[in-house]
């Protein structure tokens, strides 16, 4: 037996019921689970930043820059799992050069570039321009030149120029909110528009993806806010933390409602795929959906955050609870992506059986590689925080 196909022969022996013979191997694996997870963090973190700026939630001010830089760090990595899962990664650029316009996937490159170049980079630049000029003046050596280059030749720190920065930054944020919605709603559409797959094909998919993105992004920034302050041995701004948690609570409620509505609708209509999906949920996705996504990722955080809205224990306790909640929410949203991507491929399109999926440890689509793509953004973020320390920024009113 050719060792290249050993895992397929193993999967063949585990087929449950009838599947089309081409369906034994899952086409999309862990890397495509990461893709909506990472883009979700990007969109969610950005939306949290815009809450402060556009909707004027002043208490979130300390998270504004952290949220922007987090969004940026993850956006830089967002395409990597996509490119590496391709059978022909070197042809990836064709998607930009000759996009096929009836394909939902073809537009990703443009949505991505729009978001990266127009929204995030511009917003960060306008927010940092004044400080870059100052840091270029104060620093020495390589750092001086780096800041000078990043300021793009700008050397104006007059109040007038700062005012212009703020005005332009505001405009970019206003454009950025629909863009963030577009970015992640669009990722949902990639799955939601596949009529062959009843687990994916729902008009709710973009909306569910959007709200789950906000949930995960806000949770991540909340976690990072706690961690950064702890590492820097700073007192955590509890008003800010409580406010993030409050928004997280609200968005989880909306997300939960949307997801429940989708499932209730699916089960009540009980179309052709009803039985296979019932089996999918009670069997193959039993643990990842009911335990990890709904139990650990939704009910626990919802209950904890709900209680904390009324009952406020000591700051240390709250910090710990928020930290744990943040971690649980991120795990839950990861498994939500898993259940969509992997779950949608476990059952046959004949609706008569299941194939199986085993995550390998090594290889381009293995656990280790996936972990790398999840860890790299944190290193990028650490570098960004070092290069553009938010705590050394001049405090300005937005």
């Amino acid at each position, binding site marked *: 037996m*050719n060792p*290249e*196909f050993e895992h*397929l022969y193993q999967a*063949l022996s585990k087929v449950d019921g*009838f*599947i*089309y*013979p*081409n*369906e*034994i*191997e899952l*086409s*999309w694996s862990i890397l495509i689970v990461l893709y909506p997870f990472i883009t979700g963090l990007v969109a969610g973190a950005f939306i949290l930043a815009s809450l402060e700026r556009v909707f004027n939630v002043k208490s979130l001010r300390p998270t504004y820059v952290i949220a922007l830089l987090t969004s940026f760090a993850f956006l830089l990595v967002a395409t990597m799992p996509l490119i590496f*899962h*391709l*059978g*022909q990664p070197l*042809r*990836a650029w*064709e*998607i930009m050069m*000759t*996009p*096929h*316009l*009836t*394909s*939902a*996937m*073809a537009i*990703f490159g443009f949505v991505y570039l729009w978001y990266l170049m127009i929204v995030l980079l511009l917003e960060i630049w306008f927010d940092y321009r004044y400080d870059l000029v100052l840091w270029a003046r104060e620093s020495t050596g390589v750092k001086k030149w780096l800041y000078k280059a990043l300021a793009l030749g700008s050397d104006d720190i007059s109040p007038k120029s700062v005012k212009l920065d703020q005005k332009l930054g505001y405009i970019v944020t206003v454009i950025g909110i629909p863009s963030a919605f577009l970015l992640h709603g669009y990722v949902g559409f*990639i799955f939601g*528009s*596949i*009529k*062959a*797959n009843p687990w994916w094909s729902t008009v709710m998919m973009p909306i569910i993806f959007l709200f789950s993105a906000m949930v995960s992004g806000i949770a991540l920034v909340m976690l990072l806010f706690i961690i950064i302050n702890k590492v820097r041995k700073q007192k955590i701004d509890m008003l800010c933390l409580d406010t993030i948690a409050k928004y997280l609570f609200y968005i989880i409620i909306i997300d939960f409602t949307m997801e429940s509505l989708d499932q209730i609708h699916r089960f009540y209509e009980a179309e052709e795929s009803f039985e296979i999906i019932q089996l999918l949920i009670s069997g193959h996705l039993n643990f990842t959906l009911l335990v990890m996504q709904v139990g650990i990722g939704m009910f626990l955080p919802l209950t904890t955050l709900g209680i904390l809205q009324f009952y406020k224990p000591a700051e240390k306790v709250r910090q710990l609870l928020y930290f744990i909640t943040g971690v649980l929410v991120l795990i839950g949203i990861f498994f939500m992506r898993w259940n969509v991507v992997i779950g949608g*491929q476990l059952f*046959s*399109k*004949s*609706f*008569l059986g299941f194939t199986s999926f085993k995550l390998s440890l090594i290889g381009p689509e293995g656990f280790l590689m996936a972990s790398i793509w999840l860890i790299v953004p944190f290193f990028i973020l650490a570098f960004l925080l070092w290069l553009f320390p938010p705590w050394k920024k001049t405090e300005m009113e937005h």
Partner: protein
Amino acid sequence: MTEKKTSLSRRNFLRNAGVTAGTLVATSTLPSFNAVLFAAVKRNTKGPWYGIAIDIEKCIGCGTCAKTCKIENNVPQEPFFFRSWVEQYTIRKDGSLKVESPNGGIDGFTQSVPADQIEKTFFVPKMCNHCAKSPCVQVCPVGATYETEEGIVLVDEKYCIGCKYCIQACPYGCRYFHPDKHVADKCTLCFHRIKKGLNPACMDNCPTKARISGDLNDPESAISKFIRTKNVYVLKPHLNTGSKLYYNALNQEVR
């Protein structure tokens, strides 16, 4: 002042009208941007327009079609890659269904349900439906999967980026990822043979002549007559894929 206002608003009106008209003209000349209405594209009525017909009553489940296809098209021999395969359906007396397709039927079939429990059993050969509104063509992000003017869905293997979106989009499981070429692969209706005036290999080698292909635009072709005279049905019609694979005597259990 009043005069100035009037002229300004007239200028505005003219400018707006110009922009609107320009946009309309520009969009109307860009049919390729008609992305949302993919399924509304008109079928080709000039020249040959290929379809396939399979007579389930004639299929004996020998698997020659699946075997021939692998040889003719150099499809990997492992039992995970098929352009063409056969499924065996068995409906038990209690109404329950058993479907099997060991190695795509290439090695033939053995009946695993005891004879006294069988209500009825039949074979269903499967292959690409060469849909007129192919979901796979619709979703290919680079246009590597396309429909020829003869209505045959092909993959440009030098262009495919291997994203596998088309495999997800095909409701019939007709596509697979080629393990050596690292691109999507599927039935070409033996395009290389059709171009020489030959039949697809699976059709020529079927011992009971259960499958035919031909020009749907020609009312006198064998396939047109087959569709006219038999009770034909396509798979998953509710998905509106414009499937051009017509089955005679298809049981409703088949999916």
